[in-house]
């Protein structure tokens, strides 16, 4: 136990970095995911193609591979970014593919008549998506989005592999000094579990509040 208590500042700093990674990359993933969803359901074939290619690419590559490629590949093409920023961007782009698929399933769950009614009133495709389709789609996929958030939280620990000192890296460092892996990693695990539990609580509340009578 003292292995953890003696190193609380290190754990705390690691936890802050993990929270930064999680929040920033989820935000980025949500924005990119929304754009990809709009492309995938758009009437323009080229946009649908790009959207599909995006999802296929990022869902078919391991996140760790993408992270390593970005860290070593970006400097090769002259882009030098902070490791934390690199990790946030890569995780955001990766998770965006999953968010896009969750949102698209929500869009498909909205009856075709809703879009027809919106278009019949003179709303453009973008307007019907924004004001009619997506608000309803979002309500049906809150739970899957919550799951993606939790998976993303866990995935941020891969950033440790490219040198970002997040909670996992911090735990690893403390373990190198204290050599007590069980309590140290159980402690780190509990911190992750706490984040996940908060996410579960929030999605549960949101789902009940936004439930839509049909």
């Amino acid at each position: 136990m003292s292995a953890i208590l003696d190193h609380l500042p290190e754990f705390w700093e690691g936890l802050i970095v993990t929270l930064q990674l999680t929040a920033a990359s989820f935000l980025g993933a949500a924005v990119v995911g929304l754009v990809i969803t709009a492309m995938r359901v758009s009437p323009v074939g080229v946009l649908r193609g790009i959207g599909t290619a995006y999802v296929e690419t990022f869902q078919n590559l391991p996140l760790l591979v993408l992270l390593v490629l970005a860290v070593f590949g970006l400097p090769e093409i002259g882009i030098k970014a902070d490791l934390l920023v690199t990790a946030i961007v890569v995780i955001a782009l990766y998770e965006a593919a999953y968010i896009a698929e969750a949102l698209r399933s929500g869009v498909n769950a909205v009856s075709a008549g809703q879009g027809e009614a919106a278009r019949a009133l003179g709303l453009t495709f973008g307007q019907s998506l924004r004001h009619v389709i997506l608000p309803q789609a979002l309500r049906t996929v809150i739970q899957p989005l919550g799951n993606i958030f939790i998976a993303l939280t866990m995935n941020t620990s891969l950033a440790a592999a490219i040198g970002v000192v997040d909670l996992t890296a911090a735990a690893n460092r403390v373990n190198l000094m204290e050599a007590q892996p069980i309590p140290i990693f159980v402690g780190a695990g509990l911190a992750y579990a706490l984040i996940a539990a908060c996410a579960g609580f929030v999605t549960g509340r949101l789902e009940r509040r936004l439930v839509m009578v049909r």
Partner: protein
Amino acid sequence: MIQVQGLNKWFGDHHVLRDIDLEVAQGEVVVVIGPSGSGKSTLCRCLNRLETAGSGDILIDGVPAPVEGRELARLRADVGMVFQSFNLFQHKSVLENVMLAPVKVRGVSRTEAESTARRLLARVGIAEQADKLPAQLSGGQQQRAAIARALAMRPKVMLFDEPTSALDPEMVGEVLDVMVQLAADGMTMVVVTHEMGFARRAADRVVFMDGGQIVETGEPNAFFEAPTTDRARDFLAKVLTH
């Protein structure tokens, strides 16, 4: 107001509309009847291009209907549509349903859109339902809300695609009453329906379709009393005996 010339439409190999020619004058109420699968709903949906036509021309107010994009959206803003399944936006209150398009498409201020919406909801007799969600309304009330939503855009033409077919029998009347009133107010209307009573009462002209073709068209009294084609006589015999 509406001119359709040589309209053809296929669903795969199925030829659903065959050489349709139709003119609807300003202020005219045209009721389209016919058996299921005769293409009448498809025709109605082609008029605002919810269905793409295979070939032929559609002119609204003398202007060829654009095929896609913003011009098409602008055309649809002038052509109101009422669906069989109401299609009210489920996540918005009745009032917001009616306000959405005027605010987003016409750029009307929210205050103005709200007063117009409340006036229209009163006109269709559901003023007190304004703040409810669609799912909290009866079918008849939902359809009247949908009519108010279409009217809020001040359309030049109103299309009705079997507006009473999904309603319980006792609610059909309240929707038809609104439509009769609308027709009396001079609205140009194309109504696809199975309600022969409405056709007699409100139509200026009845169009009878079968097998994707317009088989017969005429003034309602003449059509119902003395249809000239066998197919129409046969159809009327079946629907009017009960």
